[in-house]
């Protein structure tokens, strides 16, 4: 057990990779075997994460379960990983969603071996970002997450997948360039990439210092924006969001689940882990701009979502809308750092990340369920399907309501916290964001209306097109999501208290 305790994070991080390598050696036509193996293998990190969650002491500040190995000594980069209250909740989200996404992919029958391997690699990439305590490691995992996703979209996506995957890749890579430069600048200046050390050194820089031939605040501002743009693309913030609807729409169902559920969180996590601690002053200075972009994402996201006739695209834009709240919370926390408002806004933002992970994954999955049966996502081709698929309808309404932010379900709690935290410091922005909240209702209801309600489209009622009810496996995918959505809506304290402790200590 001692080994387990000292290497817990590494185990969680690399078990998926290990499993992926094992899959490589499985016979390639045994799809069933790949599925079950991948599913079983992804459950192990989840189990370990539960153990981690249990062993995690929320009352201790700083990082726990740290592991540090020399990695790239020549430039002072170490393989340093650890978790605090913010990252542990993201780790939990990742390891929780991955088995579900894999279970959701059981219907994939094409090139299953590669598919599940990529999925497991993806999990390692995402977990690595959340655990990394070293900038270079952070960046490495950040990029690792990209590659499997690219192939998932490119190989298993729908019609327009080439365009979407290329857009996704290039867009994100474009952002990463600035990020890498900024990271290297930090590395060159301080000779280390270790986050914990950098936090202290970077902020204790005398403002009169001249770095790289420029005043320190200029350097910082440039680096700040390099970071912000990289993360803003990933979140995505308006106006960097146009890759998202394409990528989400074209990705396979499980890919969208993970993309919306976890990958978007990487950007927001970057804000929380890197931008705010490194650039508190810049964050305060530019919080208005950040909030503006966030509110733009909220409002425009909601509007654009409302304008869609493609169900999946509608859900995809809803991610823009919801992630806007995360950034709004972060902007508020940046502006009000140190106050209670900041704590609430930041806790709300992290919780919103978690919640959006659950509900967006659920929504994408449900879209996938119906797409698999009808092979269309056009809202105008549905209509009145509720009597055909009552269970599916119930689940869809439930999940939609979570996405809409109905009190009693998870989305409300976090949105409330963000609004509460942002209101005192960013009043006008918050008020405008309410417009987005209103239209959240509009597009969600539009989705339900077009799919479930109204006169039944007889095309789906008979013959070979007859729409079949959601099956047990698919229900099993949704069940954990729904249970967690409900639990978080009713009793969020178990999660929020962990996040809150860290947030109070950090910001």
């Amino acid at each position, binding site marked *: 057990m001692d080994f387990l305790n000292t290497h817990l994070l590494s185990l969680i991080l690399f078990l998926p990779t290990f499993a992926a390598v094992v899959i490589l050696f499985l016979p390639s036509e045994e799809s069933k075997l790949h599925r079950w193996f991948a599913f079983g293998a992804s459950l192990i990190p989840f189990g370990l994460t539960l153990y981690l969650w249990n062993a995690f002491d929320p009352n201790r500040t700083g990082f726990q379960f740290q592991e540090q190995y020399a990695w790239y000594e020549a430039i002072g980069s170490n393989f340093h990983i650890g978790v605090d209250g913010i990252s542990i909740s993201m780790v939990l989200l990742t390891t929780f969603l991955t088995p579900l996404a894999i279970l959701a992919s059981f219907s994939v029958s094409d090139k299953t071996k590669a598919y599940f391997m990529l999925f497991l690699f993806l999990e390692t990439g995402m977990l690595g970002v959340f655990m990394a305590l070293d900038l270079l490691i952070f960046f490495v995992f950040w990029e690792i997450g990209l590659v499997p996703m690219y192939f998932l979209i490119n190989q298993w996506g729908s019609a327009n997948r080439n365009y979407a995957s290329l857009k996704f890749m290039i867009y994100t890579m474009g952002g990463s360039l600035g990020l890498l430069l900024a990271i290297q600048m930090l590395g060159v200046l301080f000779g280390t990439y270790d986050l914990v050390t950098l936090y202290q050194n970077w902020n204790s820089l005398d403002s009169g210092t001249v770095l790289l031939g420029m005043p320190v605040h200029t350097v910082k501002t440039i680096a700040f924006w390099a970071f912000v743009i990289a993360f803003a693309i990933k979140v995505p913030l308006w106006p960097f969001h146009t890759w998202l609807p394409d990528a989400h729409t074209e990705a396979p169902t499980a890919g969208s689940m993970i993309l919306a559920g976890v990958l978007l969180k990487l950007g927001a996590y970057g804000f929380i882990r890197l931008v705010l601690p490194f650039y508190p002053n810049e964050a305060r200075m530019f919080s208005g701009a950040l909030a503006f972009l966030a509110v733009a994402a909220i409002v425009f996201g909601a509007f654009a979502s409302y*304008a869609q006739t493609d169900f999946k695209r509608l859900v995809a834009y809803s991610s823009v809308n919801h992630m806007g709240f995360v950034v709004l919370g972060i902007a508020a926390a940046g502006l009000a750092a140190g106050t*209670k408002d900041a704590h609430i806004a930041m806790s709300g933002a992290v919780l919103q990340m978690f919640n959006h992970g659950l509900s967006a994954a659920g929504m994408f999955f449900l879209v996938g369920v119906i797409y698999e049966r009808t092979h269309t996502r056009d809202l105008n081709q549905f209509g009145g399907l509720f009597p055909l698929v009552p269970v599916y309808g119930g689940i869809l309404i439930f999940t939609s309501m979570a996405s809409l932010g109905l009190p009693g379900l998870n989305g409300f709690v976090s949105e409330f916290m963000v609004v509460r935290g942002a209101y005192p410091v960013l009043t006008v922005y918050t008020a405008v964001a309410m417009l987005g909240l209103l239209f959240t209702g509009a597009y969600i209801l539009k989705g339900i209306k077009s799919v479930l309600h109204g006169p039944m489209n007889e095309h789906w009622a008979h013959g070979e097109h007859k729409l079949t009810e959601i099956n047990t496996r698919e229900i099993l995918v949704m069940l954990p999501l729904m249970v967690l959505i409900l639990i978080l809506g009713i009793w969020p304290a178990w999660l929020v208290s962990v996040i809150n402790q860290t947030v109070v200590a950090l910001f």
Partner: protein
Amino acid sequence: MTTENLIWLIPLPPLISFALIVLFTNKNKALSHTVAISAAFLSWLGAMIVFVRALGVEHFGEHPFASSINWLPTGDTWLKVGVLIDPLGAAVLFFVAWTILMIFLYSVGYHNFGQPAGDHDHAGLPPHGATVHGHTVLSVEPMYSRFFAFISLFAFGMFTLVVSDSLLTLFVGWEIMGLCSYLLIGFWYAKPSARAAGIKAFMTTRIGDVFMLLGIAFLYSVTGTLSFREIFTEEILHTLASVPSGVFGLSAAGLIGLLLFIGTVGKSAQFPLHVWLPDAMEGPTPVSAMIHAATMVSAGVYAVIRMFPLLSMDEKTMTVVAFIGAFTAIFAATIAVAQNDIKRVLAYSTISQLGFMIAALGIGAYVAAAFHLITHAFFKALLFLGSGSVIHGMEHGVFHTGNHKVDPQDMFNMGGLKDKMPITFWTFLIGGFALSGFPLVTAGFWSKDEILADAWGHHHYIVFATLAIAAFFTAFYTMRQITLTFLGSPRTEEAKHAHETPWTMTTPLVVLAFFAVTYGWVGIPEHFPVLGPLVNNNWFHDFVGHTLEHVPEAPEFSWIPLLTSLVVALGGLGLGWFVYKDVKSVEQDKFQISFLKNKYYFDELYEVVFINPAYWVAENVIYKFMDQGVIDGVLHIFGPVTDKIGSAIRNYFDVPVVNQFIGDGSAEVAWWFGKNLRPIQTGRIQQYFILSLVVIFVVGGLLYYILTLA
């Protein structure tokens, strides 16, 4: 069990019932309604126990039942949630529990439990009737279990709202009811009109809700708490009142109050967000009774009553409230006059009556508003259920004749139902008189009279006059409705064959009729001539008034409001009977004014001003122009540019320099060497082996020589 714990448990049975029905019993209709009604009964029982215990507590206003727990960590403090039953809460809980139980019971009959399944019935549409032995009879609702599940959830929301001690949980219940109203109004979701009505209801109320959420956030950030008992302390209220908000010159209290009030405007269908309520009549009638009479719209008023201490801090807000209320009261009443659909009349009547309450609050008549809220809940629930009963009876007739063109909700198709449906008639009559404020016996008289008295007593003469006129209209359209529906002779064949409804529907009518009469008697003013001394003390005023820290003074008795209310009530009723007693068809109705009939064209206005532009902006500006045009357009430029650069590099550098000079040149050098070294390759492994050993020995010997000997 302590009362506090009991209060925690009150909302739970309906929630459990919802879960049970959805997860387990949805295939079994009988079991589903048993579960739902049992749950409603348990909540009712709990509510009654709490109510009785509340009556037994001295100075209940200062020592309410309250308890709370930590819910959400916020920084270093916790956001708490809890339950609170103070006098206002107890009074509201009382009527909520009763009406919910009655509506649950009524729903069994309304959805034709026990009838055969319909021939062509289809989930999502109202039942079309079943053929039994050649006769068409009513058929059972295909989504019977689902209905009970939804109203159970609804009941949960309402109970949560009533017992909550903070704005947060109030908002939770509030939104859950919003969801349920969406689901229930759009219950027959396959009907496009019902579907649209559901969305309209949800979206319109949501407009109010986001403002309310903003208000809550504002309040929370200023005071650090959302609990009523903590906010309504002198200290905090004064702080709130003295902090300027920077908007419209309002104080923080005023702005918060206004924001919260906008929530109520949405929820209680006040002008200008009233448009959803009439459309909401698309839902099944029990839903109309539940949402639009007894609970949800009342919840809006309840919230304002709750927040009254805060609202009353700022005069401007109060004025806005009073204005909105009074305007809505008369505005809706005028529309009601021109409606032919039996439920729509009641819908506008509800809006109008809610306007009364809001107006009462706006002028500071706290107790009167609460009183009218409760009496209205009883008699309006009664009226809605009665109208449902009428429709049900008419459907019976429609099935009898087989002429489905006849709208069973159109009052001009009715007439003379008094004899066919006696229980319905008498209870409807009681309800109608209560609504009109028929003097002395009905509850509506006492509550409406108190509002008028307050308006007069507090010198709000404009409000007084507006409300009096509205009351007159109320009495008029009520009598119009009763006359057209029940009196005279049947105007259609269907009306002749209408039939009394089963006991599950009539029992609730009788019970509610009882309260519609008697509940007024608990609030007879002390100074009322003759009766006042008889009851000695205005119990309701005394009880509910103590919710506030400073018990509001009852207005002094004055004959003017009393006489006014007598005149408008009796006058309106009389006029209504007089005008409509001989009307035989729509054409003879003088009040079919298209301006009124079309509700002042508000729906159309909103369509043109808000909804269409919003969609246009969303689709064309934001999605097509901005996202796809500008942003993606910029991105798409990158592709060709990179391509150009790439091919330039290839053609002018890679091919000539790298490939031809460096690449091919080095290959040739390598080739020359290879050609000349070829003969060494004998292809015999052992010779290679020996050769390598020779090399080793030679090199080793040389090294040995150099290192040791030399």
